[in-house]
């Protein structure tokens, strides 16, 4: 079976009635960047530190048929031990502070952190509330911020692409920047 017939040939699954050219384009670019940065794939652990739950719905959507983000080398994993990156949604509440810190600590290098949604980026509408500490960067070092109330799946994808580009071009130099944190390999 040659490459062409693999692309245009009949699939075992049902046909999808939808395509989203823009999303596909960003997705393919992301796959390329992940290949460049990690060689293989990007594993993400999600932690909700106090969101209104809409960001969770959009993150779940990334795994549904319209988006199917695993095609682009991104998977959501069940444990921080398996994760390259952590997505934080929501302003960090006093009651979630320790859980966020522990999740971050449990992650192996490169320990990337992505803030998803306005509240995770800046603390959002919660301002000076007694119950929150502010955005995710009040608790853990954040590598990329994806604003929105909540950001749509395509926006999250673009944010991941920006993160991968930052890594490839060496723009992430904060202590959290994984690539710099890995022990130097001995020849």
């Amino acid at each position, binding site marked *: 079976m040659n490459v062409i017939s693999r692309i245009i040939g009949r699939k075992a699954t049902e046909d999808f009635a*939808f395509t989203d050219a823009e999303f596909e384009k960003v997705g393919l670019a992301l796959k390329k960047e992940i290949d460049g940065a990690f060689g293989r794939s990007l594993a993400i652990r*999600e*932690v*909700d*530190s*106090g*969101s*209104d*739950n*809409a*960001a*969770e*719905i*959009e*993150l*779940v*959507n990334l795994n*549904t*048929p*319209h988006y199917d983000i695993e095609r682009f080398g991104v998977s*959501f994993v*069940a*444990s921080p031990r398996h994760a390259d990156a952590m997505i934080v949604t*929501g*302003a960090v*509440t*006093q*009651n*979630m*502070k*320790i*859980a966020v810190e522990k*999740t971050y600590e449990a992650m192996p290098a490169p320990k990337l952190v992505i803030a998803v949604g306005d*509240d995770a980026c800046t603390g959002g*509408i*919660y*301002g*000076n*509330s*007694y*119950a*929150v*500490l*502010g955005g995710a960067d009040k608790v853990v070092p954040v590598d990329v911020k994806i604003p929105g*109330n*909540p950001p*749509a799946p395509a926006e999250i994808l673009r944010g991941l692409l920006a993160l991968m580009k930052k890594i490839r071009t060496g723009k992430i130099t904060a202590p959290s920047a994984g690539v710099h944190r890995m022990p130097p390999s001995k020849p």
Partner: protein
Amino acid sequence: MGMLNEIENIISGSEGGKLSAKIAESGGEVRIVPHGNKDFEELMRMLERNGFALMSLFCVQTSAKEFQLIYAFEKTGHPEIAVVHRRAGESASSVASLFPSACWYEREITDGFGMAFEGAFDGRRLFLHETYPDGFHPLLKSFENRRIECSRPTAEEYAFKKMEGEGVYHIPVGPVHAGIIEPGHFRFSVIGETIFNMEIRMFYKHRGIEKLAEGKTPEECIGIAESISGDESVANAVAFCMAAEKIGGIVIPERARRIRTILMELERIYSHLGDIAGMIIDVAYPAGASPFFVMREEALRLNAELTGSRFMKNYVCIGGVRKDVSTDSAAKISRWLKEFSARFDSAVKEILSFSMVVDRFEGTGIIRAGLIAPLHLTGPAARASSGEMDTRRDRPYAAYGSIPIRRMSMKEGDVMARFKMKAAEIGESARIIKACIGGMPEGPVRADAANARDGSAFSVVEAPRGQNVHWLCVKGGVMERYKARTASFCNWQSIEHAVIGNIVPDFPLINKSLNLSYAGTDL
């Protein structure tokens, strides 16, 4: 007989007519002020005996050391709300033995205001976890809202109920779970694989929403109401605005009522589609869930086209809605619904013909009808367990008064009943939307809401998960106190009962069949 008359009869019929209280009715609220504590306690016993259900309980600070406790009740067959006002100082007697749903409210008041409840069966902290210092009570007016420093836990570790015995072991789960979901803690006590007891601990996402609203204008608080729970943002925005409109004497245009109704039903559709897909995922059948996820995505895109937001945020406003819905958009909704309904029905039929699904759904996670009143369960969870309450029909708002809402109820109370109930409600929502579009009058979509008035008011809506109750108090044009209680706050407590005797692997399925909002509970 109206609620006012019924309560008058109850009071005069109390043992030897000993109960003394002032009663007045205005704006759908029957206000009762018992004279003394004895009168209050007798009134509580009488209300309980006569089938009144506690729908909300909260505290308002009236002066440095004086408080007012407000108890809201409803009774099947009455659209009015009975509101009992009770003066209190640093302590008050608990009503949790009469109304078990009062337990969380009283703990919430203790945390917020430092008020102690005598005779309460549970005095543990609720939304203030160990990290908060002792003596900190954020809802007191003497505390000016600001970021506070919390060091390592100062308070004692949270005491879970002790479950001991031969072969009993414990599984602590959360707050961070394995999937992409909200945080909460579940403490299972298990014998073999069977759940013997389960205790939930919530409020990890406590963001201080009620305090946050204080001092802001009602207009500024709509975004706060929307962020109570992202997937109930329309329901909460509508509830908030309805209360503000009631206070301000604002009558919204008929077209705005219709549009609000359409949005609320679209919210129910996408929310239930997510629940249905989630239940199928949790019986390990992702391919079966795909059609429902596809339909939910279509609904979210329709939301965005209609309002500019996939979750329809920033669209509802005091006086109506911010923007009109064009004829084209309305036609698009109609076309989508027509095509969607057939596809949805056939997908449901296919799922329910699959023995693996049926086997896991049937008889799992039963919520007994007897729990509905004591825990004040509402929404599809209650309607799947013989409950019949539906705010849209019992206390019509928006355009629901002009559209007949079908009475739906099932007896089984298991995961299957909740699945079927949510599926049936999607069909009903589609019908309501079609009726709204069909009879849509021309005209403005926003009434003038400029002349602000002071006052307080309740509002009640039927969110996808059940009854949400909001209470606003406006003083000097700004929020003096805001209390919101979502269906999840009450319904969460049913899961502790639903899981007993089930196996641990069925817990995620039972949880998903209720799909309660953590954000909407923790506030």
